[in-house]
């Protein structure tokens, strides 16, 4: 039995290690071959980018050698997939190698898609790549005051990022002692300041108290960089001095170009996680079309459910559980406080008032993550 995982990010790594443990005997006896293909020899802890953008983490803290995180039973290659030949149960890679599989899992993640909005890439700061986060930090350090507009595209990964960066910018300018010269202006695509109703209920008075202004039902249309104006689909116009964006995302180009799903989002069954119309192809993490948060925790919980199911398919010929839609997100709330939201397909979250303890746990998790990726946490 050949199990092939494409992608060595959060989802792929947690799944690979989970399967290597569950199927250790079968791998040892050469009954199962577990292979992982990735585009990089490094594992990238993306949540750290939020901290990098405000100078609270350094780039070297965000990377580990991918091989060092993997169980020995995993045959790991840095060789990105270029073709998915699903009818033949094969993929072809950049090196020209063809890999056969009995079970394929696609976990290639997502990418910011700035080009969607005219003028966005040229005029906005964003922290969704290392390069972008470092450029944003430089801009923030030299900013002398004015209106900072935060603008949000859909769909985007990390649903808490819009709120978190706003609270963190507030603290950043306060520490620089220029808060009185800065107007923070937050915009959001729907009719409240966060998609989760209970999170919006908690965050709105926090914004009011901190003097953070906000405009809802605001979807970016275009940016006039010469005049520093952001226009919305809903007909609003906002002047800015500094524009910070949480950009819309797409799945990876190869997923889109190979026709696996519109905009690179692979249509899957929400419980079994298999690709529509295919019993032996699965997708987890950001690249799915599921209507749930594109977050590391989603990839993590999906990987655990799928790991259990693939192992049971090998051992008893059938899956044993459904993915329940579980997501868990920390929410940095500024002033060294944080809270969290935990929810699934049936139960909405009920975030508690933010505390310092949760903030320090999140900071600790930025390091503990490496144990989590190894499957030890």
């Amino acid at each position, binding site marked *: 039995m050949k199990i092939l995982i494409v992608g060595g990010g959060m989802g792929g790594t947690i799944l690979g290690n989970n399967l290597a443990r569950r199927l250790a005997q079968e791998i040892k006896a050469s009954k199962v071959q577990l292979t992982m293909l990735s585009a990089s020899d490094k594992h990238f802890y993306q949540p750290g980018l939020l901290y990098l953008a405000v100078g609270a983490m350094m780039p070297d803290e965000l990377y580990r050698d991918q091989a060092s995180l993997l169980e020995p039973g995993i045959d790991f290659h840095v060789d990105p997939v270029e073709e998915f030949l699903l009818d033949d149960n094969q993929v072809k890679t950049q090196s020209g190698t063809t890999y056969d599989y009995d079970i394929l899992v696609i976990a290639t993640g997502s990418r910011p898609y700035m080009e969607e909005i005219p003028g966005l890439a040229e005029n906005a700061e964003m922290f969704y790549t290392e390069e972008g986060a470092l450029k944003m930090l430089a801009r923030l350090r030299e900013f002398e005051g004015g209106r900072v507009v935060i603008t949000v595209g859909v*769909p985007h990964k990390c649903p808490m990022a819009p709120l978190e960066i706003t609270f963190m910018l507030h603290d950043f300018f306060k520490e620089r002692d220029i808060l009185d010269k800065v107007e923070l202006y937050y915009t959001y695509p729907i009719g409240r300041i966060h998609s989760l109703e209970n999170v919006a209920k908690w965050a709105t008075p926090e914004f009011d108290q901190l003097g953070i202004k906000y405009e809802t039902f605001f979807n970016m249309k275009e940016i006039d960089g010469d005049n520093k104006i952001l226009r919305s689909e809903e007909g609003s116009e906002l002047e800015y001095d500094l524009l910070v964006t949480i950009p819309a995302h797409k799945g990876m180009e190869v997923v889109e170009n190979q026709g696996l799903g519109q905009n690179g989002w692979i249509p899957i069954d929400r419980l079994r996680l298999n690709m529509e119309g295919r019993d032996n192809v699965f997708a987890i993490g950001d690249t799915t079309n599921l209507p749930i948060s594109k977050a590391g925790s989603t990839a993590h919980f999906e990987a655990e459910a799928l790991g259990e199911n693939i192992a049971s398919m090998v051992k008893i010929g059938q899956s044993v559980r459904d993915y329940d*839609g579980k997501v868990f997100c920390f929410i940095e709330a500024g002033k060294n406080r944080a809270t969290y939201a935990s929810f699934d397909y049936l139960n909405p979250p009920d975030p508690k008032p933010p505390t310092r303890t949760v903030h320090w746990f999140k900071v600790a998790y930025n390091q503990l993550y490496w144990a989590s990726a190894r499957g030890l946490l």
Partner: protein
Amino acid sequence: MAEKIVIDARGSFCPGPLMELIAKLKSAQVGDELEVLSSDKGSATDIPEWIAKAGHQIVESREERGIWHITVRKMK
């Protein structure tokens, strides 16, 4: 006109049915109809409210056994 595009956003607390609709509308063609399935009764008000602001059209909104079926037409 193409076939109706169905957005199954049942059980979606985050990003939620409206965000799913906004994302899908971007890659739809003018004139396309999109049907959102939502288990959140808030969709019956927040989707029409945004559709009016953004200049699209509500074609139909009905509830069937706790699931809202809201069909919209992309107008621009």
